[in-house]
């Protein structure tokens, strides 16, 4: 990876580079101010969340734009993006179902829920439907154990899942009743 350190007007470069919306760039600037001068790198995780929300996943271009904005090496962004499991460094479907598979959810039937979603969408865990609408992933504890089984889609929690609720949920996302 070549040294991509950029010295010129960073915000503008990032905007041109990847086409982040004005709102996202404004948010980037605001978040940067939460930290003391010289410590702006701390903004990285929240910026990656915003970038992922806007682009749908973290493409190399999106990560490079974040690096440019923070005036850091691209590798510093890649190593963070690949460490944290919420970041999708490969393309995903429009709606990503992240189903909790950890103990407390398993005790009340998450295995069956995962199998059911898999059957219903006709994809295996980790795959995306042919129409690009849904990706099914399993994740570790979402911190909602009292309301298990549980899945998260973009930052929304869907709790106390049953097969009927899964049917409704898929329909609601497909038809756009639940917006991302």
């Amino acid at each position, binding site marked *: 990876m070549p040294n991509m350190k950029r010295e010129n007007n960073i915000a503008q470069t990032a905007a041109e580079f990847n086409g982040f919306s004005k709102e996202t760039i404004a948010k980037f600037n605001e978040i940067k101010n939460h930290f003391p001068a010289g410590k702006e790198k701390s903004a990285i995780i929240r910026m990656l*969340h915003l970038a992922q929300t806007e682009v749908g996943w973290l493409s190399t271009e999106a990560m490079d734009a974040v690096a440019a904005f923070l005036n850091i090496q691209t590798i510093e962004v890649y190593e963070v993006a690949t460490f*944290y499991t919420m970041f999708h460094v490969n393309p995903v479907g429009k709606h990503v179902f992240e189903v909790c598979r950890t103990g407390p959810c398993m005790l009340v039937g998450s295995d069956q829920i995962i199998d059911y979603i898999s059957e219903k969408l006709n994809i295996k865990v980790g795959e995306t439907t042919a129409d690009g609408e849904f990706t099914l992933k399993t994740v570790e504890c979402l911190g909602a*154990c009292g309301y298990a089984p549980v899945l998260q889609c973009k930052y*929304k929690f869907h709790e106390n899942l049953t097969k009927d609720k899964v049917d409704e949920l898929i329909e609601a996302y497909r038809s756009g009743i639940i917006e991302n």
Partner: protein
Amino acid sequence: MKNRKLLLENVHIPGIETYDVYRKNGGYRSVEKAIKSLTPDEVVEEVKKSGLRGRGGAGFPTGMKWSFLAKPEGIPRYLVCNADESEPGTFKDRYLMEKIPHLLVEGMITASYALGANTSYIYIRGEFMYILHILEKAIAEAYDNGFLGKNILGKGYDLDLFVVPGGGAYICGEETALLESLEGKRGNPRIKPPFPAVKGLWGAPTVVNNVETIAAVVPIVNDGGEAYAAIGIGRSTGTKLISACGNLVKPGVYEIDLGLSVEEFIYGDDYCQGIANNKKLKACVPGGSSVPILPHYLVTKTANGDDRLMSYESLAEGAFASGSMLGSGGFIIFDEDQCIVRNTWNFTRFYAHESCGQCSPCREGTGWMEKVLYRLETGNGNLRDIDLLAEINKKIEGNTICPLGDAAAWPVAAAIRHFRDEFEWHVSHKEEAQKRNYGLSKEPMLA
């Protein structure tokens, strides 16, 4: 006094998440009291007197932790709230922050004043992004009403408070990994010493406290440390949020006086109301997935036959042989139909997934244990595998930078200690084990 609540008293008042309603119900009194009438050291003294212990899992005395904070001239100090709640079975902080966000904001202001911090952060797990927005709204309201920003209450104290999200990594609940993450890096724990109290965030002295710990500072300052210490039992003072889950009639978040009996907590009408679907209790993990599992005959009674209580000491009674830990208060109940081998495999897979990969005993050991447990669970194991698990265990324990290795090793050791018969049955009854679960284990003859 039954059902006393210090943190969740007002949680059901409509609109309590807004500043106006929170304030009308006595909110921000602790900030007024601290800033107007107490010196920072006097606030620390109250917290020491209260006997409050860290509510994130370790149970270290908070007042003592605060008194370790280095105070060199000309270097900023930081208070960081650990809201990276990710221990399986634990969902109490989420509840508190979602329902009554101003309580955490108020606690952060009072605690920051006590520590002399002028910038503080709440590090929240990325999955709780919606709570980050709830907290930011509460923080904005606190700024608008003069409880944050410059010259708070006209007394010359300045404080800025920000919320920072993580990105989905259990390890960032470990305080030094959290600080790395807060600095915008991978969450690899740091070698201690130096402890954060000396070199923490950006190398400056830092205190990291759990959400519930910081919230508890509010009633401690309002009513005094002694009043708080009067609640509870022995060195387990005050109230504790317990998040109960698994096969219970009424799972959820409960605020209890420390010292409540485990029997009443599981079966009492005011609490979990017993095991779901009229099943029998098989086992309990009382403090989040990292603590040793207890078989049914050691849940409500200790090995000595005493009543087991919800306290740091009583849950630990019998040490690793027959006790467990209060931990984070993630209380997980298993009914008679649950398979201990499968559950142990599931938890080990969690730790293998969440190991940061920095120390080889943990990185390799958790993955190895996961494979061996999967082999046993799917009927492909042999008796030697059970001893192999114990051997791997010993090689992880104590040989890693942070406690994740121990947290992964202990539950496996405890499961084999108490449920060896069930592990052996998986080997001797390979086909049957794939069709049904083992059921309740027999109580061993106690000497």
